[in-house]
C-alpha cells in the first residue's frame, strides 16, 4: 500500500477523463454496463479489474468473479484497440482470453476511439516489486528477521516519504479535475438533478 492504489487511481482518472471528452463513449459503454473484465498485464504484478457502469471503476481485486479475463503484455494492449485483431492475437498467443468474448470485443471497441498511452500510464510502476510485496494483504506470512527488517524499511519509506511525494501529484490532479468537471456543469449532471427534482415533485 498504497502505491498500487495510487497507480490505479491515476489510471482510472485518466480513462474517465478521456471517456468524458468523447461524446460517443456513453454509447460504447452501454453494452459493457454491469460487466467486469480482468486484465493481467504481464509486466504488472497485480491484475486490473475493470468494472463498467456509466464510467469505468478500476479495482485491484483478484477474488471476485468476472465476465471475462485476459492476459497480455503491455505492448499488446495497444493492439486491443482493433476488434478485428483479437482472433489473431489469440492465435499468435499474444493474448489469452477466458470467458465472455462479447465483453472483450466491447472493451476493444471502447478503447478504439480513446487515445490512451498505456505504456506511459503504467510503465513507471512496472516491476515495482516493493509495491507488489505491500499488496500481499491478508496473506498471513511467517516473518523471519530478514523480512522483519525489510518490512520496517518498507513501512518507513511507505509511511514517511514515498507516499507523500507520490500522493501529491495524481491526487492533486484528481482534486483539480473534480473542480473542473464541477465547473463544467455538464448536461448529464444537470439532467440527473432535474430528474430527481421531477421525481420528488411527482412523488408529492
Amino acid at each position, binding site marked *: *500500500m*498504497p502505491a498500487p*492504489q*495510487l497507480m*490505479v*487511481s491515476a489510471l482510472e482518472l485518466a480513462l474517465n477523463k478521456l471517456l468524458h471528452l468523447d461524446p460517443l463513449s456513453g454509447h460504447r459503454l452501454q453494452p459493457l*454496463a*454491469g460487466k*467486469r473484465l480482468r486484465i493481467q498485464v504481464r509486466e504488472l504484478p497485480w491484475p486490473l479489474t475493470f*468494472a463498467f*457502469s*456509466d*464510467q469505468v*471503476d478500476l*479495482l*485491484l*481485486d483478484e*477474488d*471476485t*468473479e468476472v465476465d471475462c479475463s485476459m492476459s497480455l503484455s503491455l505492448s499488446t494492449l495497444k493492439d486491443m484497440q482493433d476488434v478485428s485483431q483479437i482472433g489473431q492475437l489469440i492465435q499468435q498467443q499474444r493474448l489469452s482470453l477466458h470467458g465472455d468474448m462479447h465483453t472483450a470485443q466491447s472493451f476493444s471497441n471502447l478503447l478504439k476511439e480513446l487515445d490512451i498511452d498505456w505504456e506511459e500510464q503504467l510503465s513507471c510502476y512496472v516491476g515495482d516489486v516493493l509495491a507488489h510485496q505491500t499488496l500481499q*494483504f*491478508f496473506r*498471513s506470512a511467517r516473518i523471519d528477521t530478514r523480512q522483519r527488517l525489510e518490512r*520496517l524499511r518498507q*513501512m*518507513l519509506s*511507505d*509511511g*514517511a516519504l514515498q*507516499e*507523500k511525494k507520490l*500522493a*501529491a501529484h495524481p*491526487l*492533486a490532479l*484528481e*482534486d483539480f479535475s473534480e473542480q473542473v468537471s*464541477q465547473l463544467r456543469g455538464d448536461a*448529464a*449532471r444537470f*439532467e*440527473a*438533478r432535474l*430528474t*430527481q427534482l421531477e421525481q420528488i415533485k411527482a412523488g408529492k
Partner: protein
Amino acid sequence: MSEPNSDRPQEISPAGPQQVGEEQTHFGFKTVEKARKASMVADVFHSVAGKYDLMNDLLSMGVHRLWKRFTIDCSGVRPGQRVLDLAGGTGDLAAKFSRLVGPTGQVVLADINEAMLKVGRDKLRDKGILVNMDYVQANAESLPFPDNHFDLITIAFGLRNVTDKEKALASMFRVLKPGGRLLVLEFSKPQIELLSKAYDLYSFHVLPKIGQLVVGDGESYQYLAESIRMHPDQETLKTMMSEAGFEQITYHNMTGGIVALHRGFKF
C-alpha cells in the same frame, strides 16, 4: 447550527485517558455520561460537516482516498448486492459502491448525523447517483434493518465515534447476511515507535491548528486526535469483532498502522 462545543464537560485529565465507570464513556480523553456522548459527537460533526471533505484531504494529505480505495478493493462487492455504508458521512465509499452494485443492487448510506447525511446526499445527487441509493439516519448501535439483510457493511472512520462499540458490532452482525462481510476502516496503532511519536505530534499539535484555521473549530479536531488515541488497537478490535460473532477476521495495516482495515465474515 449549534455552537459546537457548548455542552462539553470540563477537561478532567489533560494528561490522558482514565478509568471510567459503568455509566460513563470516553469522549476523546474526557469522561462523560454515556447518554451524552452521542449528542457531543453529533456536535463535532455538525460543526465540520460543510468542510468535511476539504479537511479530510488536508489532514491526511490526500491519502485517505487511497485508504478508502483499498477498502473497496477488499470488499469483493458484485453487481446486484446490497451494501450498507455505515457512518457513511459525506458518501465517499457509497458513490463507488453505487456504481459497483449497479441498478439491480442497493446502497444504503446511513449516518447518525443529519447534517453529514445531507452533505452526502447533495454530493451524490450532483454526481448523478440516484437510482440505487438510499439515505437513512440511524445509530450504529441499533440499526433499523431486518436480520440478514446486507451482503457487505463498511464503516470507515466511524466506529471510533460510537459510544457502545460492542453493541454496534452486534447490530452489524445481525443485519449482515450469512456469507456477508464487514470492513472496518479506522485509525489504529502505528507499528513503529518513531512513527507513533511523529504521528502524535502531528495529531495533537498540527491537526487542531489546521482545524482552527480552516473550519474555525480547533476543539473538534482536538477531539479527533483524542478519539483516535482512545480507539482500540488492531488486536483489541479483532477480539471485539470475534466476540460479536464475526469469523475469519484479518486486518491489514496501512501507512505503518496509522490506519488499519479489519475484515470479518458472518457464516
